[in-house]
């Protein structure tokens, strides 16, 4: 695709700083083991999955999305999660959260109830 020589292709290569003939393979085991990414992604679905190809829906589900638009999901910052997010980037918005995911998970912010249950008859 980048070899076509169109003007937009040249601009995009300049933007990324990657030579037109270069492909970056970064999936060797030693490289993956040595690099540790801190932080995690907060991923929110912004579009419905209706009409979207089945392969994309599978990726959404593997990320934990697909239930409700606007409900955030958290994934560690790994190449696996990054590749999944890039597949669905038109339907999703993300934030970079510093630090690891909390062990207890994120609780949905709810208003305090005006009562406390002290017992049940049933």
């Amino acid at each position, binding site marked *: 695709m980048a070899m076509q020589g169109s003007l937009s292709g040249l601009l995009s290569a300049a*933007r990324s700083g990657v030579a037109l003939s270069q492909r970056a393979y970064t999936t060797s085991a030693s490289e993956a083991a040595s690099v540790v*990414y801190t932080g995690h992604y907060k991923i929110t679905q912004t579009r419905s999955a209706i009409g979207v190809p089945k392969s994309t829906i599978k990726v959404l589900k593997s990320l934990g999305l697909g239930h409700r638009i606007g409900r955030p999901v958290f994934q560690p910052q790994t190449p696996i999660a990054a590749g999944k997010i890039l597949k669905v980037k038109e339907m999703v918005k993300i934030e970079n959260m510093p630090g690891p995911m909390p062990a207890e998970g994120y609780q949905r912010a709810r208003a305090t109830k005006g009562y406390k249950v002290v017992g049940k008859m049933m």
Partner: protein
Amino acid sequence: MFGAFRASSISQGGLLWKARMKMDLSPTQKANIRKRLKAADDVVKKIHDSGVQCNALTKAMAEPTEAQMPAKDKYTVFSRTFKGYRKSVHKVPHFSKVPIPRTAPAGF
């Protein structure tokens, strides 16, 4: 269309088209296309900022951003069958949530 008769849904074989037959998009449609392109750019940028490396990110970074795209690439896509080899992007099914190529083959 058919001689002296006005084109209506009945006269066009009883079929109903929901997309406009015209090629031009309204200013609102164009603004929303730009907004969605910027949102997708933002996702790529955030993943790049996180420091993760993967082939999908390399390919995504090689594509032009919304600011670098000419208007023709934003609002039309390459098509083998259309006159002029370009069709309006709104004719692509689910174009608002399906990845659209940001560059066309050279010369088209």
